[in-house]
């Protein structure tokens, strides 16, 4: 009985502690946003942040996005719209990648969604590498798109590489090769395809494993 009481007290203390931490985060977020945004914009962003928190989504990226906009002197309406879009993308990423996903995966996944990567491609990526982090795969995917590789080609390349057993290190090396090829004047799509070929050639037997997926539209 005494042990049960102690356990209950501990649970209560823990829940109060976490509530207090969350309240502290909320207060700190509010102070930072109010210090950098117009009052209306700060209120809108805080409402989006609260909604995201209630939905169990990470909120730090939302606050950071608003502050990034403030630093770049974006208009309030643009800041609010971008924060709202990011919240939606975080939700989409969680739906696609699973509720147990790491925060870094959700943030990178949201970025990929905002770059036009279809949500079901994220789900396929998860299925290709169950139980392992997808953060670096998604970061490389975003980087390829940012460097001008068409979204479909970039997604196909990453999916093929992951299905072929490519490690994070392989993907990072591929990113560097693609970057180098583009700087040498090669078209981004061609550079990505070449980068994938090189990755597959370095992994004996991987080409068969990847099948023809490099050529398929994700």
């Amino acid at each position, binding site marked *: 009985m005494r042990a049960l009481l102690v356990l209950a007290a501990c649970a209560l203390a823990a829940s109060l502690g976490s509530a207090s931490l969350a309240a502290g985060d909320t207060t700190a977020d509010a102070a*930072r946003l109010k210090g*950098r945004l117009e009052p209306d914009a700060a209120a809108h962003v805080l409402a989006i942040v609260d909604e995201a928190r209630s939905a169990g989504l990470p909120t*730090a*990226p939302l606050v*950071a*996005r608003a*502050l*990034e*906009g*403030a*630093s*770049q002197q*974006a208009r309030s309406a*643009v*800041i609010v719209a*971008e924060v709202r*879009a*990011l919240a939606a993308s975080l939700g989409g990423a969680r739906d696609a990648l699973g509720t147990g996903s790491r*925060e*870094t995966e959700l*943030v*990178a996944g949201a*970025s*990929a969604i*905002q*770059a036009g*990567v279809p949500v079901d491609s994220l789900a396929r990526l998860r299925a290709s590498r169950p139980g392992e*982090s997808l*953060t*670096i795969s998604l*970061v*490389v*995917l*975003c*980087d390829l*798109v*940012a*460097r001008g590789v068409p979204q479909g080609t970039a997604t196909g390349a990453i999916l093929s590489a992951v299905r072929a057993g490519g490690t*994070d*290190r392989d993907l*990072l090396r591929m*990113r*560097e090769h693609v*970057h*180098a090829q*583009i*700087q040498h*004047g090669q078209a981004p799509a061609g550079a990505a395809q070449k980068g994938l070929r090189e990755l597959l050639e370095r992994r004996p037997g991987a080409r068969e494993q990847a099948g023809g997926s490099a050529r398929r539209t994700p």
Partner: protein
Amino acid sequence: MRDRDENEWLEHLRAEYRSAGSGRDATSRERLLERLAHESAPRRRANPFGWLARQPLSVQGAVACAALVLAAAGGIGALRRLDRDAMRGARVPAAPALAVHAGFPGTITFALRAPQVTTVALVGDFNSWDPRATPMRRQGQGDLWTAQVELSDGLHSYAYVIDGADWQPDPGAPLTAEAPFGRRSSIIVVGEQGSF
């Protein structure tokens, strides 16, 4: 060929950083940064199209708790610098832009080679994107700018602000896919197989 000299120099930097990184020794990295500050890249002719021929290079150290990305800039960063220099009527920078961030759990050293600039600041989600929060320090009289920041595990976005107005992504790091406010940023992941 000038590019060959430049590549050899960059290879030298790569080896030096690997060596410093493998020890996980902050002092040795500091010493290395100091040495780099006094070391010049091979001079290249002021060729208005020189950035086209610039070799990119980025390296990741194969260290358990650290990774290194080393790059010579071309692409967006160099193009933007070229545009700005053209507006100012300045010469094309004699040395290649170079960005390094060496990741160690907790402390990350960001370094950017940025010739002919007055100030460089590091901005990112870790400092509320505030250009006043993390000014980078010029190493000696050279063109190497560095800043050390404590980063929590996770994915962080960041950029460099040059001369108070010119936002540039890290030439050696992965880019964010989106540029929500018109300027693209770079990404660093801390705590997942080291940092990159």
